[in-house]
């Protein structure tokens, strides 16, 4: 209350002028607004419209109400895709989060060559996904791939990587982790850089060791940033497409067919636009739910 009052008295002369100007800023927003409407809002509305139709490319379209949504409930392939997506997402959030926080702690220390090391570390997330997916595909080759050579030369059994339904999703998670741990690291590193130093000095004086300092000082302070990174990671993992599409293309069989891959097949292989649109709507709701769930954790932790 105190702060709002003092701000109000200080800006006594301003409100009239401010309000005047705020209206005048709309021409700045209009061109972008038109584009956003055309390429973002229109597709949303049109998707809702298509999802209640039986709509095949080259065929007639008929209004069928919520039939597409009902069909989804009975569609086992869709159900499995949802479960697979959640499995892939859970792993692709947890692993990059753990590694990313650890990496942020390391890169927060000052050492010669830090800039170069950090740049090399973020290369995987900047590189063209298709290009690195192709290199991983070659490395996963069961007979000629370099990864199985490395495994066997260390005395470990070779893996089938993406060529077996049991190992394909963990393998894809490995690529996803390799690619997106840097983003988690950057966000948490930004958080670490903004922390006050006093609690550390107090902890050192109290004789805390490095692990205790991390667990009881760093982690609670940087937690909001970790949650932001987790939300972003969760959204991106749900939407993962390029690497899965190139490396396994949903296979073997349908063992790595996530929602996004199924969506692609329905829309652009089977040209079943109505059903695909209904999947988009459900997919979007799923993303919103996961986002809200993660934000809920953030809020709860902030309160406690």
């Amino acid at each position, binding site marked *: 209350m105190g702060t709002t009052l003092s701000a109000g008295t200080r800006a006594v002369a301003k409100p009239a002028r401010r309000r005047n*100007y705020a*209206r005048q*800023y709309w*021409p*700045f*927003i209009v*061109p*972008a607004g038109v584009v*956003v409407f055309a*390429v973002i*809002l*229109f*597709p*949303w509305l*049109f*998707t809702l419209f298509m999802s209640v139709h039986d709509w095949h490319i080259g065929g007639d379209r008929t209004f069928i109400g919520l039939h597409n949504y009902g069909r989804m409930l009975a569609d086992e392939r869709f159900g499995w895709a949802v479960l697979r997506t959640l499995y892939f997402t859970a792993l692709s959030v947890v692993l990059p989060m753990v590694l990313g926080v650890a990496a942020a702690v*390391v890169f927060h*220390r000052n*050492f010669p060559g830090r800039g170069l*090391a*950090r*740049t*090399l570390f*973020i*290369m*995987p997330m*900047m*590189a*063209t*996904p*298709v*290009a*690195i997916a*192709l*290199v991983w595909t*070659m490395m996963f080759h069961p007979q*000629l791939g370099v990864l199985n*050579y490395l495994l066997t030369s260390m005395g470990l059994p070779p893996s089938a990587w993406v060529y077996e339904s049991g190992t394909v999703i963990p393998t894809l998670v490995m690529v996803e982790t390799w690619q997106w741990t*840097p*983003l988690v690291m*950057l*966000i948490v*590193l930004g958080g670490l850089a903004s922390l006050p130093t006093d609690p550390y000095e107090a902890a*050192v*004086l109290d*004789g805390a060791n490095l692990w205790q300092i991390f667990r009881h000082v760093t982690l609670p302070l940087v937690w909001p940033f970790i949650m932001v990174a987790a939300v972003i990671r969760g*959204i991106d993992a*749900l*939407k993962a*497409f*390029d690497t899965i*599409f190139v490396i396994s293309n949903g296979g073997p069989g349908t063992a790595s067919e996530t929602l*996004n891959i199924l*969506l692609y097949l329905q*829309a652009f292989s089977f040209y079943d636009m109505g059903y695909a*649109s209904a999947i*988009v709507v459900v*997919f*979007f709701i799923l*993303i919103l739910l996961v986002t809200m769930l993660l934000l809920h954790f953030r809020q709860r932790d902030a309160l406690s």
Partner: protein
Amino acid sequence: MSTVPISRRRSTPVKRRMRRVFGRMGLYACVCVLVSPALLVFLWMLSLSLKTEVDNTAFPPVFIPQPPTLANFAEVFRKNDFLQYTLNSIIVSFSGTGAALLIGVPAGYGIAKAKATRAALLILIARITPGLSYLIPLFLLFQWLEITGTLLPIVITHLVITVPIVVWIMIGFFEGLPPELEEAALVDGATIWQAFRYVAMPLARPGITVATILAFIFSWNNFIFGIVLAGRETRTLPVAVYNVLTFEQVSWGPLAAAALMVTLPVLLLTLLMQKEIVAGLTAGGVKGG
């Protein structure tokens, strides 16, 4: 770190120095463990692209090309319209980024000044929507407008990625600028457009650089829009490289060479502009598609 005020463990200077040396070594070991997976994959890509087909399919693998050959790169250009695809990628990414800057920078300014949080929220929702969901309606729209088969649909869809990146970063930058300078300009009789063009925009140049680089990179890397919309003549580089794998050839050398050439501009940009890129990514957590 090294200025521990009270040493409780009564350690001798030698012991303390030992501990510091081990700490340093531990730190460097950690850095090596973190950086090497990234480095090794790129080095392996380079190695594959410089070896002959015999060496690439040898087991145990040949790690260092002996001698390195550029034949794979030559083959990529000989067997494919690689120049055409490069040109397509350049046209798409440059016009996608340019158009986004043209409309996104003023929009970011307007949203920041008018405190239009709802508009900012819309940008955020655009960020969480999967790229494919835009494609289904836009695909039908482009068919209806009969502009499929040209680069125009691809440029338009790339706006889905570039506009939110530019607007989001610019909102943050314009909000961070002190308002006093523009207010002074307005009091002196400048129009709002002049205050934006001659006061705010020059100050926000670092933000514009960050937005340009990130929008360009994520547009260049984009695969999903091209794979659906591009015909044989209008493939962008990522789509072309994917098609090289699946339809035209399966030898590893040319494939790795093509992959390397596609991603090299982005890697160089990352090396040269790492400070700007890190700043932009830390601020927005942006990513396209």
